[in-house]
């Protein structure tokens, strides 16, 4: 047989088209609402129309008169289904954190617009919707806490009177450093004090949520189908909340149309459907509507950020002091309290800073709970430090790139221990910045901007920078323990080789748009010397993949992908022992490449992996004591986070007459470590940049003073389309992470983390000579125009 020599990385690094796409593009993929469940009971949820109100009476008679509506159940009626069980929060960040009891359907009092107050059971989705609309709820309105500042105001109404406070917790980092920080501020040449508002965002994945619980009549088993990012965690939590044995519960995530963190949760409807399905012995299902999603699914961000920088005369940072007020909403969902902490370690950005102090006070408001949303804490942190760095640059009188360059952690300082005690793995921030400056032609843009200013043009050019570092690859389990997170951060993988040498990968990482199947196939194909199309990847079903911790926090590749990589290695080790037996050679004398074991120095002595696989299957002649078959399982717990980084440069044109902002150029240089598939990396960066730019320019979950969400549809909540996307110009810098064997870091959140401050810095850069030093997000035309008018002393 002839052996073709193949490079060690035949597939990794190539722009391979995604194997997921044909099913998605042809409509063959099945999403939650595509499930055909004859005889299913449809749930319609009656949601509070009041931000805070006592539920006086619920009248279901009109609903029950509708054909196909069978029952109307209140929180009181349903209470026996969950007893003392409540929706779980898995992140008690402090020992004295206040945790309100969060029932799937409220009893007595509704705490936010969207809070479930009753459910309708019906024969169809249509009847369920008609029924839910026909239930009449009599409310006695109570004073509501709407804005974050209202929560801590004197005499503020209480969201949860039984907790006697609106404060959920106060969490600090490096509090014993306070004196040193104060001293640094006292002796600083430049002090920058800024306050920023992180508006609430609606995640709005293409597919809203939905779930279906299907009981098995004979054995008492229950299968929960859900549009979730976390089937494994959902299984454990559902089991705990409802007291269903884990051995009786299976959770399946069908094709899932995006999540951005909002499907990293355990929701009322999931618990409700499971409990009712168990009670009724029939499938029970619910599909979320788009407008419903705006008030029933978690929202992102929601912080008031206070950041201060102390610097010497040259702008070298001496200290950073940060105080946050973080909006939890009315209840704590799965990881609500932990989100600000994920940013808490990173408010010093990419900069070497001797002194750092961070404090977050979390508060309850009468709004839908917040939780993880793409970037989760890190976009907020990056926003604050990167906006403040531009203010510092202005104060010192140097360019934004110069202030960054003066303060960057140097390439030779990696691994770098950060002030709060993280160890940054690798990077060259200066090289990345230089590449971005050159790609964006910053000098040329500035000349153009100066020309326009000189000519009195109403079309101002602004150039905005954002250099970021994020902690990804959640996470080392021991670190999570120190943060009081309720789970570990490992990931599991199994690699099996079939008798005919096809490969099955089972991953605990749960894709919902990322391209796991393609990337895991490429990794394994290179390892084993097989074609990626000969690799199948199984996931998202706890019966098939019983062990896993799912997908969030840019962890899939660096944790889950590493587990796959290591499981492939483990299979090769076993195959090597069999090959050595077949070739009557010493294992140490074998080399494996291109799918063939060879005895070094004896070219004709070789056996392909296929031969080994078949031998392992027949088990006719295996080494003494060896188990048949080729299969290996690995659970990988990362020793550290990974730290992707980069510099993004946004160029905007601001129309000073109308306030309109147009993104005319966007350059991103990202270091996400080694790239498995650059096509997928670029897709993540493109989408991420637009999602961050959306926070900067378009998206805002606006509540009126009564606590009504007034942007509950996609006409008023402005998710940008492809037309609004900038021209992306991407380059990368690769500094392999030493934390894992592939040198990968993760890229799912990078774009979103970087882009909002880049865009906002560009807007301010365009207007700074007009006296504008800050513009709040989103920089809508009206907001920008008013900022200009008020800086010019005019009426706004």
């Amino acid at each position, binding site marked *: 047989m002839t052996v073709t020599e193949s490079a060690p990385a035949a597939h990794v690094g190539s722009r391979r088209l995604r194997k997921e796409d044909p099913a998605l593009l042809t409509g063959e993929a099945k999403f939650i609402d595509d499930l055909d469940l004859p005889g299913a009971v449809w749930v319609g949820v009656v949601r509070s129309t009041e931000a805070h109100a006592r539920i006086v009476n619920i009248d279901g008679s009109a609903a029950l008169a509708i054909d196909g509506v069978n029952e109307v159940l209140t929180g009181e009626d349903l209470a026996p289904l969950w007893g003392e069980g409540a929706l779980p929060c898995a992140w008690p960040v402090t020992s004295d954190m206040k945790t309100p009891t969060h029932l799937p359907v409220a009893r007595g009092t509704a705490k936010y617009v969207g809070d479930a107050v009753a459910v309708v059971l019906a024969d169809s*989705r*249509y009847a369920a*919707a008609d029924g839910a609309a026909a239930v009449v709820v009599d409310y006695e309105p109570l004073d509501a806490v709407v804005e974050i500042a209202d929560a801590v105001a004197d005499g503020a109404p209480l969201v949860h009177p039984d907790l006697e406070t609106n404060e959920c917790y106060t969490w600090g980092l490096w509090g014993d450093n306070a004196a040193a920080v104060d001293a640094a501020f006292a002796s600083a040449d430049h002090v920058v004090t800024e306050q920023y508002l992180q508006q609430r965002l609606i995640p709005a994945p293409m597919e809203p949520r939905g779930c279906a619980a299907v009981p098995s009549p004979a054995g008492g088993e229950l299968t929960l189908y859900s549009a979730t990012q976390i089937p494994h965690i959902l299984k454990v939590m559902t089991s705990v909340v409802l007291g269903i044995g884990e051995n009786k519960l299976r959770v399946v995530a069908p094709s899932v149309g995006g999540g951005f963190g909002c499907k990293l949760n355990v929701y009322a409807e999931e618990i409700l459907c499971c409990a009712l399905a168990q009670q009724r012995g029939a499938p029970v299902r619910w599909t979320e509507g*788009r407008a419903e999603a705006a008030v029933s699914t978690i929202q992102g961000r929601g912080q008031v950020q206070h950041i201060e920088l102390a610097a010497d005369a040259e702008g070298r940072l001496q200290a950073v002091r940060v105080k946050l007020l973080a909006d939890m909403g009315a209840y704590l969902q799965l990881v609500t309290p932990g989100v600000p902490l994920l940013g808490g370690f990173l408010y010093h950005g990419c900069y070497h800073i001797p002194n750092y102090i961070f404090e977050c006070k979390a508060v309850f408001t009468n709004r839908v709970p917040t939780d993880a949303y793409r970037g989760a804490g890190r976009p907020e942190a990056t926003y604050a430090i990167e906006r403040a760095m531009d203010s510092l640059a202005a104060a010192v009188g140097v360019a934004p790139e110069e202030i960054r360059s003066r303060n960057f952690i140097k390439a030779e300082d990696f691994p770098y221990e950060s002030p709060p005690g993280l160890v940054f793995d690798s990077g060259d921030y200066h090289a990345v910045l230089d590449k971005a400056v050159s790609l964006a032609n910053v000098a040329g843009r500035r000349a153009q901007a100066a020309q326009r200013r000189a000519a009195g043009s109403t079309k101002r050019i602004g150039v905005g920078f954002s250099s970021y570092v994020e902690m990804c690859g959640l996470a080392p389990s021991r670190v999570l323990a120190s943060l009081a997170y309720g789970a570990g951060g490992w990931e599991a993988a199994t690699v099996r080789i079939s008798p005919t040498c096809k490969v099955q990968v089972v991953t605990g990482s749960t894709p919902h748009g990322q391209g796991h199947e393609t990337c895991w196939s490429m990794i394994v194909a290179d390892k084993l010397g097989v074609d990626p199309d000969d690799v199948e990847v199984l996931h998202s079903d706890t019966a098939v993949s019983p062990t896993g911790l799912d997908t969030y926090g840019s962890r899939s590749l660096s944790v889950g992908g590493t587990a796959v990589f290591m499981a492939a290695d483990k299979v090769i080790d076993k195959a090597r022992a069999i090959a050595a037996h077949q070739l009557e050679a010493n294992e140490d004398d074998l080399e494996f490449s291109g799918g063939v074991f060879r005895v070094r120095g004896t070219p004709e002595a070789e056996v392909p992996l296929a031969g080994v696989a078949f031998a392992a299957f027949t088990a006719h002649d295996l080494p003494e004591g060896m188990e048949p078959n080729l299969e290996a399982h690995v659970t990988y717990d990362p020793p550290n986070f990974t730290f992707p980084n980069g510099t993004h440069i946004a160029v905007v044109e601001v129309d000073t007459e109308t306030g309109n902002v147009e993104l005319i150029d966007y350059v991103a240089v990202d270091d996400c470590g080694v790239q498995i598939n650059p096509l997928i990396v670029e897709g993540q960066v493109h989408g991420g940049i637009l999602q961050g730019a959306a926070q900067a320019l378009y998206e805002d979950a606006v509540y009126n003073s009564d606590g009504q969400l007034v942007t509950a549809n996609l006409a*008023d909540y402005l998710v940008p389309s492809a037309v*609004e996307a900038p021209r992306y110009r991407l380059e990368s810098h690769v500094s392999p992470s030493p934390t894992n064997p592939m040198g990968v870091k993760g890229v799912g959140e990078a774009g979103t983390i970087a882009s909002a401050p880049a865009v906002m810095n560009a807007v301010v850069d365009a207007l700074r000579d007009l006296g504008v030093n800050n513009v709040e997000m989103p920089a*809508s*035309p*009206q907001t920008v*125009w008013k900022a200009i008018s008020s800086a010019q002393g005019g009426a706004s």
Partner: protein
Amino acid sequence: MIPAAFDYKVAESAEHAISLLAEHGDEAKLLAGGHSLIPMMRFRLAAPGVLVDVGRLDDLRYIRRSNGTVAIGALTRHSDLEHSAELAQACPMLSSVAALVGDPAVRHRGTLGGTIAHADPASDLPAAVLALGATIVARGPGGSREIAATNFFTGYFESVLADDEMITEIRVPADDGGWNYQKFNRRAQDWAIVGVAVASGGTGVSLVNMGSTPMRASAVEAAVYSGASAAEAAAVAAEGLAPPTDLNADSDYRSHLARVLTRRALNAAGVS
């Protein structure tokens, strides 16, 4: 996002549609492109008992030029207007405004008659036909009548159209004067926050989303007619108006935008 239950009737002809309207009274709504009506039904802001689908009346889908007038069938799609070479020549403003409505999906379904009958003050095409001095032909049980566009719109989503009338044709004078349409919005697919249509070299000017109806900017037209500069004429664009306040713009900002956009539109239409 699920509409209340409704009956659905397919109209075989305009006469049939009108008889169905007469039969069902104010319970009935005409369905053409559906891109305004159906979202309102899904939000349950509208709950008609009967939908009369006129979308298949292809004999009302035409663009015909004769002498100085372009006659456009009410069921003509926005995309037909956008891509009609004849219209681009006879009345380029209308063709160009059609290309800015919503997104391609909306433009392939939405109809000129439908958007005029819907009478949304934030829509583009009603303001365009106003500026052009169009005539709207409506047919009811007693026959057809012609309504000047300037007399058509009476209030927020309201017009002089009776419950049992449907628009069959829109007649637009051919216009070779300077023209321009300024549409200001945040996303390409959105309604205008403010829009300004200028036709006939500046003597036809109308405003989008500056009140409860699409409206002629008479003060601007008069100023242009009397020889004022674009800047002078634009300065009175919001005079006497009480534009709405919403999430995108308060009343003052809308007035400011109307002035800026009117000046730009007049300039682009050749008024210096």
